[in-house]
């Protein structure tokens, strides 16, 4: 083989995994000694990556509809043909039934497509860019190119990876290779069948009702909710089941509003919005804090691609907490301050709005504890999109640039298998870390479970006792091999949490995004959860707010509020739907709650109805055997807050009282801005409690309260509101508005 063109031809085939065994040996031998062919081989990698800068596009909604219509017509024609052929079928006892069922199916084709189908078909290649053929040796090669330039090390890496996964998982990934989509569905089935006691909400597929969930399961879940001691007691089994039927009925509207979503397999948990609760029956409101902001960036991503986010993707508390508010910095014994304010509610003048703000201590650089970080990076085929792996690389590089001698970084990747790419390395050795990040390539399926296990074991190996030990998981959320049911994953993470390793979950990408799972994982792992849609957001999370992202100053922070029944008739907690705790949980130190990072601010808003209001809430007869003595007081409410120091097991208590005189006419400054964000959230969720809320009003308030806005986040919010205003056809802007058919 002295002809170089010929050998390069072979290298090209070898690169594609298409060389015969003999050719393969030839090429490998040649590559060992020929530098120019090694370079050529490397260039093929780079060429592949460069070509993929031309990313996949989606079908236009028009085309999508046209084809769906064509299909419907084809099916109808077929039915017609059948009918004329077998006229007796209609009269037949069973035949009539079958025919009716088929007709109903045809009529509901549209609904069916948007609903259950999306659950069933999640071939990763649907929305995803080119897929690496996930053969074992190719995965190895992807990792290999990440690991080093020389080919000789390939064998050692193969072994490493083989050691990292158990035989059973190897088997699983082998199956995966046989049929990617098949395994995908197995996972789904497992998810819906496994007894997920931890799962509080019914998971359903975005843009569609939970049609593929059998009624018995709905009832079971509803029962679980009741048993779970949820405060929104008004949602019994019956309501849930009713909601399940109702959601079919509103389906056409949903289709109109979120038309572009067809074929999408993103998942969001159903949010059952908090209701107004009467103070007489429910004087206590208890919640866990939530510092996550993922919902905001995800919402922004939707709006920037000219879609309204689905209501269940909007967690209002995460929108509010995306912004920093100017609360006083703590000086005393506690690592944070609590600020309370009250005013007239902007979207319902008969109500008042109460703000509870928590400000965490900011740490100076010399106060920062040493950190032991493990980056756990998803390099599966689905990450091979410009808004995933490349953005992820940029984001992590930004962070690495902030690190120094005090921090250590290890990198674990997972695709079809999990493998260590970088041993724990001091943060000052930036070059090594950045090079390792740069060399990551996407390919293969997703063994998330094995990855998490490996990352935690490395975190434990390098554990810093008096420090910050943290796994940072970056993924699009689709763990489709190995320990992959939610319940199993959560058990694993809860176990690791006890060892003192914290978890940060960073979400990337679109189309196959599993929001529900990521939030749960972060929540269970003593962690926080971000969604990165742009470089700007990466900068916010990994540069400007790195302290809050990495350093926990208080854990299990819970808030409990006692409302005064002589002043307040009813209240509604805005957002925090999946953070509501039972009243007993407040004093129970074994109950897990949210973590507060350095410099974090957390804001909770309550909408309250004053006692003199004529509004009626529920209708419960007066108690015959019990009488409650109401103590007259000028207080509106008492705010209690419990937290633990990061390494402590017992909690500390802070108390604060809000009185009537605290109420101002209009919210002002940061309070006004938070109120505007909440109002925006109500609009996006199309909440039944949105009152007089309007985009116009949100804009006015937000512009008014923009303040200094040195990072431009608030300005961006204003732009998003304007965008949503033009997209939302649910709210008529004035007379003569034309609805799209």
């Amino acid at each position, binding site marked *: 083989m002295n002809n170089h063109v010929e050998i390069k031809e072979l290298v*090209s*085939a070898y690169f594609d995994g298409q060389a015969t065994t003999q050719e393969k040996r030839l090429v490998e031998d040649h590559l060992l000694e020929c530098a120019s062919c090694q370079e050529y081989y490397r260039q093929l990698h780079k060429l592949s990556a*460069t070509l993929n*800068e031309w990313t996949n596009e989606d*079908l236009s909604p028009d085309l999508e509809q046209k084809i769906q219509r064509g299909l419907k017509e084809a099916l109808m024609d077929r039915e017609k043909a059948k009918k004329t052929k077998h006229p007796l079928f209609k009269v037949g006892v069973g035949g009539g039934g079958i025919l009716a069922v088929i007709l109903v199916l045809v009529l509901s084709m549209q609904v069916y*497509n948007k609903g259950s189908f999306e659950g*069933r078909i999640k071939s990763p290649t*649907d929305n995803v860019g080119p897929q690496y053929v996930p053969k074992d040796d190719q995965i190895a090669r992807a990792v290999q190119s990440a690991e080093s330039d020389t080919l000789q090390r390939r064998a050692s890496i193969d072994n490493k990876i083989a050691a990292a996964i158990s035989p059973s998982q190897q088997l699983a990934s082998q199956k995966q290779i046989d049929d990617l989509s098949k395994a995908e569905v197995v996972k789904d089935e497992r998810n819906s069948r496994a007894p997920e006691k931890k799962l509080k909400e019914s998971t359903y597929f975005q843009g569609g009702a939970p049609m593929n969930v059998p009624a018995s399961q709905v009832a079971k879940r509803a029962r679980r909710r009741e048993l779970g001691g949820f405060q929104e007691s008004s949602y019994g089994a019956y309501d849930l089941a009713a909601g399940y039927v109702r959601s079919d009925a509103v389906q056409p509207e949903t289709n109109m509003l979120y038309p572009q979503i067809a074929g999408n397999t993103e998942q969001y948990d159903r949010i059952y919005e908090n209701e107004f609760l009467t103070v007489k029956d429910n004087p206590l409101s208890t919640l866990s804090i939530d510092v996550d902001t993922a919902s905001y960036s995800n919402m922004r991503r939707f709006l*920037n691609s000219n879609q309204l986010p689905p209501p269940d993707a909007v967690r209002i508390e995460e929108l509010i907490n995306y912004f920093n508010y100017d609360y006083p910095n703590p000086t005393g014994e506690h690592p944070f301050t609590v600020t309370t304010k009250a005013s007239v509610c902007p979207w319902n003048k008969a109500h008042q709005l109460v703000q509870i703000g928590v400000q965490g201590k900011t740490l100076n650089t010399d106060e920062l504890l040493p950190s032991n970080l493990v980056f756990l990076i998803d390099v599966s085929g689905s990450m091979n999109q410009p808004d995933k792996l490349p953005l992820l690389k940029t984001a992590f590089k930004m962070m690495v640039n902030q690190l120094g001698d005090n921090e250590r970084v290890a990198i674990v990747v997972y695709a079809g298998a999990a493998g260590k790419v970088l041993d724990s390395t001091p943060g000052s050795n930036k070059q090594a870390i950045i090079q390792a990040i740069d060399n990551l390539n996407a390919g293969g399926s997703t063994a998330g479970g094995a990855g998490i296990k490996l990352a935690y074991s490395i975190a434990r190996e390098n554990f810093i006792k008096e420090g910050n030990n943290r796994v940072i998981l970056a993924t699009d959320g689709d763990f489709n091999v190995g320990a992959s049911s939610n319940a199993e994953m959560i058990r694993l993470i809860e176990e690791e949490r006890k060892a003192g390793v914290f978890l940060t979950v960073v979400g990337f990408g679109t189309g196959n995004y599993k929001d529900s799972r990521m939030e749960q994982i972060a929540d269970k792992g003593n962690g926080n959860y971000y969604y990165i849609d742009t470089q700007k957001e990466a900068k916010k999370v990994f540069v400007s707010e790195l302290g809050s992202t990495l350093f926990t100053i208080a854990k299990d922070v819970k808030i409990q509020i006692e409302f005064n029944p002589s002043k307040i008739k009813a209240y509604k907690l805005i957002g925090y739907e999946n953070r509501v705790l039972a009243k007993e949980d407040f004093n129970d130190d074994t109950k897990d709650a949210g973590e507060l990072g350095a410099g974090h601010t957390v804001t909770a808003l309550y909408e309250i109805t004053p006692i003199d209001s004529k509004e009626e809430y529920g209708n419960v007869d007066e108690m015959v055997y019990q009488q409650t003595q109401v103590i007259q007081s000028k207080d509106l409410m008492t705010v209690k807050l419990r937290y633990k120091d990061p390494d402590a097991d017992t909690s500390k208590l802070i108390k604060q009282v809000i009185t009537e005189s605290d109420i101002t006419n209009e919210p002002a400054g940061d309070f006004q801005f938070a109120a505007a964000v909440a109002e925006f959230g109500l609009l996006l969720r199309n909440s039944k409690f949105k009152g007089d809320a309007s985009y116009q009003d949100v804009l006015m308030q937000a512009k008014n309260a923009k303040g200094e806005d040195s990072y431009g986040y608030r300005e961006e919010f204003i732009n998003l509101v304007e965008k949503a205003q033009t997209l939302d056809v649910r709210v008529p802007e004035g007379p003569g508005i034309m609805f799209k058919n």
Partner: protein
Amino acid sequence: MEQRDEEIMMEYQSGKDPQAVSIIFFRYKSRVLNFCLRILGNRADAEDVTGDVFLTLFSRQYAYDPKAKFSTWLYTVARNRCIDRVRKRKNLVSVWFSSQESKEHKQWDIEDTEDLANDQLAKREAASRVKRAIRQLPYEQREAVILREYHRLSYDEISQILNCSLEKVKILIFRGRESLREQLKSFIEEERR
């Protein structure tokens, strides 16, 4: 349990479970569209052809034999439709890629209003350079490279779709790559700075 494409098609054709064919649509819509888009280089034609492919599939004008692999067969159909389209286009006027830079195209280029940071711009620059480089490839090389680089098909499948020998596939891909490597030199060699 998920059905294989071939099974679904069989049930569609025999009328056993005709609805299931929309699964086929979901599985392949993105693949077909993006294949046509990269081959034809303009959105309007690609959408037309994609619509054609699926509509004729549903109306059973094309006879699919369930013994053959469905994905390969569908790519073949799409490929043939693309060739028809190119021929037609050549007969009319030479509009080869001419609408690439037109308004219509820009409309579909989802504008990232968020960031105009340098990196983002560089990204878009890279994407448009890639488009141009692929556009200049001879037609057969273009087909082979696209099926390999963007659809990750095996040489065997590609040879079936292009109806040529394995050896030819190998050469087409190799030559295509050589040419792309030259065109995109600046991206591929930047690491060595």
